[in-house]
């Protein structure tokens, strides 16, 4: 039951690899080329690392969170729009099983993209990609889970596809972009408002943690950030289950 739905949700992107996996990897590689290889040398080293090594965890996070977000977001929206969610809702699966399948498929897609990016990074010269492996794994997993749960909520809420794009452009993208993908906190110290807001942005903590795992540098306190992210992910998951159980935008 759960496994079939998970399989279906994974197949939907695996059979379209150029769109679902290729596109995000290409865009991140373009970032690596332009920011890392072209502009990077002019920026110099950040926190004793080459700019590209510093930036890479941010790029991985960006790809991870958007991809784990997109899968359940689009998939659920389409399933609702064309009503093919109905036979799933009428099956003997529990709400928790259905939600878990959607979320897990998104998690796997995010991890797949992130893994490819990290492998690419390992090939690049002068790039440090893995320093503390357990941290890399934990952060990837927690963030994928968080992004996928968020995507599930948006996929339920969206009444037209503009809404998903809206959520992505006005919420996800600013959070990710201002979450310290391209700069260190030290660089924005003087911009008081930004540097304060950035510390409340969960994405900053995600990137901070992954950066610690990848290059061994952390600008924020890891235990605090990690606890916060795990709590946030758990809350989002529970919200998803609750919305499904209630039939929010699923049942008339």
């Amino acid at each position, binding site marked *: 039951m759960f496994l079939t739905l998970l399989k*279906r949700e994974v*197949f939907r992107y695996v059979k379209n690899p150029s769109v679902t996996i290729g596109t995000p990897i290409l865009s991140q590689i373009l970032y690596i080329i332009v920011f890392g290889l072209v502009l990077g040398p002019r920026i110099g080293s950040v926190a004793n690392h080459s700019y590209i090594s510093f930036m890479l965890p941010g790029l991985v996070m960006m790809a991870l969170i958007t991809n784990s977000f997109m899968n359940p977001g689009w998939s659920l929206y389409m399933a609702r729009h064309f009503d093919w969610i109905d036979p799933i809702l009428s099956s003997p699966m529990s709400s928790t099983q259905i939600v878990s399948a959607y979320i897990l498929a998104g998690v796997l897609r995010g991890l797949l993209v992130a893994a490819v990016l990290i492998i690419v990074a390992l090939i690049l010269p002068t790039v440090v990609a893995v320093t503390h492996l357990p941290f890399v794994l934990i952060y990837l997993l927690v963030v994928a889970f968080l992004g996928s749960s968020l995507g599930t909520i948006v996929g339920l809420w969206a009444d037209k596809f503009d809404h998903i794009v809206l959520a992505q452009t006005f919420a996800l993208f600013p959070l990710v972009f201002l979450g310290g993908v391209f700069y260190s906190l030290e660089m924005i110290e003087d911009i008081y408002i930004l540097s304060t807001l950035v510390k409340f942005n969960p994405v900053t903590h995600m990137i901070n943690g992954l950066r610690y795992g990848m290059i061994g540098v952390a600008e924020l306190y890891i235990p605090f950030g990690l606890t916060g992210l795990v709590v946030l992910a758990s809350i989002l998951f529970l919200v998803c289950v609750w919305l499904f159980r209630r039939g929010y935008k699923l049942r008339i």
Partner: protein
Amino acid sequence: MKNDVPVQLFDISKRFGDTLAVDSADFSIQKGEFFGLLGPNGAGKTTLIKMLIGLANPTEGTAEIFGYDINEDYQDVHSYIGFAPAEANLDREFSIFDNLRFHAGYNGVSPREQSERAEQQLKKFDLWEKRDNKPYELSTGMRKKLLFARSMIIEPKIVILDEPTAGLDLETKEAVQNNIKKITEEGVTILFTTHQIDEAERLCDRVAIMNEGKVIEIGPPEELLKSGQGDLVRIKLTEYIDSLPNELTGDGYRADFVREEKEIKATVADGAEAAADIMKILHGAGIATKAVQVEKASLEDLFLQLTSEDSSEDSQINSSGGS
């Protein structure tokens, strides 16, 4: 199973804003019964069905499937029901073969058997050649067959079919009807809706007639006809008229008026007596008649009488006219 009653409704209602789509439906369907739900467009048939299978939340009341509450024990409830909707809700991202396979999987059929059953169903409904096509690449009738096949693939104890034969050619319709009949012989309970009253009359053990959310009649087709109005009176007129005389539209009489064919129809208990009475009223109003015919009423005639717009509890025709 907690008990032996496939479907038991408890004053179940569904409201959409000002519309009471289902108004305190309260009846049960017995094991192995072939049950028809009839009613004009918007009567509430689909809404009633959707509440049973977890696609609509009842506003009030509830229902049980083999004793399991549709809300509390939804997982048990869903494990007994196979459902084919009136409109295709097939998975457009996958082939029709995958559609069936996945559907079996969602319902707990083992991976090996999923493909076997999908193949078996597709072959049974002449869709095997189309197995790699997406649902939107099928014709409307083929999709209808596929929906039916999908509902059967989980070998359900209760099959709920929303207009399963609408839009099918004669041969396919017969194949689907035969299939439905065959599974009732295996003790499966059927709840189906249709707009083809003759189909319901022929196939169903019992029917419920719904109108504006209310179940207005329920029983075996023969008994409904016996207890209600048994004869159909047809009166042909010599020329067009603009409206019926008041005596035929007011309290007591309820006659239908088919304008193009210059014909008046009424379903009544005693055809001969009513025919004479109606003729008298028509002649009294100066309307000339050409022919009078009294025949046995079908369920369709009764249905039209019960559900036509201006009908209400107390304006149903009775043989004595007036009062």
